[in-house]
């Protein structure tokens, strides 16, 4: 009982202490307003507001909270296209991520299977994959714009439904998020024990049946590890993409607020991005755990 109590205390107390230390550090380097009375040269005293500190423009934790309050307290409000509650922005970003991520899985999984099954295919494509894998999303997006410059889907009234920027952002998310899925699936397929394949051989299972009854179930835990990592990357990429194309979303909001010199909102955005990324990762690892066999 005491042990359990201790465990719970540590699990809450220790992270709390760490958070307090970080916030304290933040407070120390943040800028503080200094109000002084200055003679304006005509004999009148005017108040002069100055920000001082290690990083004068960085808002303090309290200022951050005050400025962010309307976005957090009304997370679903919509005051304008670029002035919405924080969760509304996050939702817009999540929708885009979901689409790009889905493309990554649908394209990446079969490639992974081919890499895992065929040595020749691996030898042929491995260099290309290794070269494309480390390319930053910032580099892919312009290529996407060029690639899909002809994409224009509009409704009857001429309102754009799906244009070049949409296609390019999906392309960027998909191609960046794809690699963990590709590589983990390949590893998973290679790691299928020979014994399972021998069982398939002795029973004379057809190729399709071997795929669905032996290979996929056996590689599934690896595949889900890849899916989890891919989701993390997709969420990472969305911010960069939105910044570049200026779409409403959590990343777009961040960049727009920077340009508007509302620095507190940058911190708000970062915390939101981190929080959502954490929740996504937890959710995926729960699903991953369900598929872990033996």
């Amino acid at each position: 009982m005491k042990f359990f109590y201790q465990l719970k205390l540590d699990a809450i107390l220790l992270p709390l202490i760490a958070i307090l230390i970080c916030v304290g550090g933040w407070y120390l380097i943040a800028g503080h307003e200094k109000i002084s009375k200055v003679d304006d040269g005509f004999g009148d005293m005017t108040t002069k507001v100055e920000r001082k500190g290690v990083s004068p423009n960085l808002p303090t934790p309290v200022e951050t909270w005050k400025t962010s309050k309307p976005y957090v307290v009304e997370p679903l409000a919509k005051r304008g296209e670029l002035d919405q509650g924080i969760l509304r922005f996050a939702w817009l970003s999540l929708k885009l991520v979901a689409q790009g991520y889905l493309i990554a899985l649908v394209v990446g999984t079969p490639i992974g299977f081919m890499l895992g099954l065929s040595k020749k295919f691996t030898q042929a494509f491995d260099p290309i994959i290794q070269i494309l894998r480390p390319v930053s999303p910032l580099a892919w997006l312009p290529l996407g714009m060029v690639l899909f410059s002809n994409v224009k889907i509009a409704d009857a009234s001429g309102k754009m439904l799906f244009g070049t920027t949409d296609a390019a952002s999906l392309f960027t998310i998909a191609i960046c998020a794809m690699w963990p899925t590709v590589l983990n699936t390949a590893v998973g397929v290679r790691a299928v024990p020979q014994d399972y394949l021998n069982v398939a051989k002795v029973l004379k299972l057809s190729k399709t049946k071997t795929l669905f009854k032996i290979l996929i179930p056996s590689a599934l835990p690896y595949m889900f590890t890849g899916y989890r990592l891919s989701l993390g990357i997709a969420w990472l990429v969305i911010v960069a993409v939105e910044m570049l194309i200026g779409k409403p979303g959590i990343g777009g909001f961040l960049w727009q607020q920077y340009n508007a010199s509302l620095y507190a909102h940058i911190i708000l955005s970062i915390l939101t991005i981190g929080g959502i990324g954490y929740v996504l990762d937890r959710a995926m690892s729960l699903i991953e755990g369900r598929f872990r066999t033996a």
Partner: protein
Amino acid sequence: MPPILELKGVSKGFGRAHERNAVLQDVNLTVNEGDFVSIIGYSGSGKSTLINLIAGLLKPDTGTARMDDSIIQGPGPERGIVFQNYSLLPWLTVIENVRLAVDQLFPAMSEQERKDYAAKYVDMVKLTPASHKYPKELSGGMRQRVSVARTLAANPRILLLDEPLSALDALTRATLQDEIAEIWQKNRTTVIWITNDPDEAILVADRVIPLLPGREGATLGQELIVDTPRPRDRKEIIKTTEFKDLKIQLVTTLLDAKKESAPTITKKLSTPDILPEDLGKKRSFNLFERPAPRRRSQLAREELKIEVP
């Protein structure tokens, strides 16, 4: 009537030309329908290679492996194999593992027939209460029973057992040996049982064949016939002189073969030309004059003590 299985002059090695590692050399084996054969040998002496050749998972380098007078081309359900490590699919329950074989091999049956058929084999290995458990929830002995059930459900003409019980504790082994022997008595399927345990070989089989290691690969030795009537009572049998004689004969054959095949080393052993530093000696630290290491080649005389076990 031709024998159900016939190996003639089979040899098998792994690796390429000059680095070839010969595993089996000139193996000859004839098994008739209904035989219960056990092949006994040392670990790593090529037992699994032999059973894989019979199963068709491997092809012989020279010689032929025939079943019913036709050359074995590949694996098939008529030669069911129980693997040493059970090879159960961990994402399927006991009954689903058996159903995998049943569904594949008896497509003509109705869903209900297949269900009953699979249940019958699960019952045969006494696992009906654990039907819906996953392999990880079962003990080693239970897992191997599932494997036996899956293999038997395929209705094989030859049942190949590759050290099926070697991962189990002695008491579970004994129980499973009796159970498998009992099942054999009912079905009279031809059985080839690979083992490394002389007691097991003599207790379960009618024909015990040692796999003798040799420098050019292992080969099958003189077979021993066990004509103890069935059902065999292990407690009684292990007391009999026949059992003891057979065991002594078998163990002697295997030990002698091992001695003869003991490898001789023709390699020149070279030790590094450096001697360990005497750490007990007091040294003064000098940055520029480091003491040179002592070389073995500079020694006038060296004594080497060799202990022969």
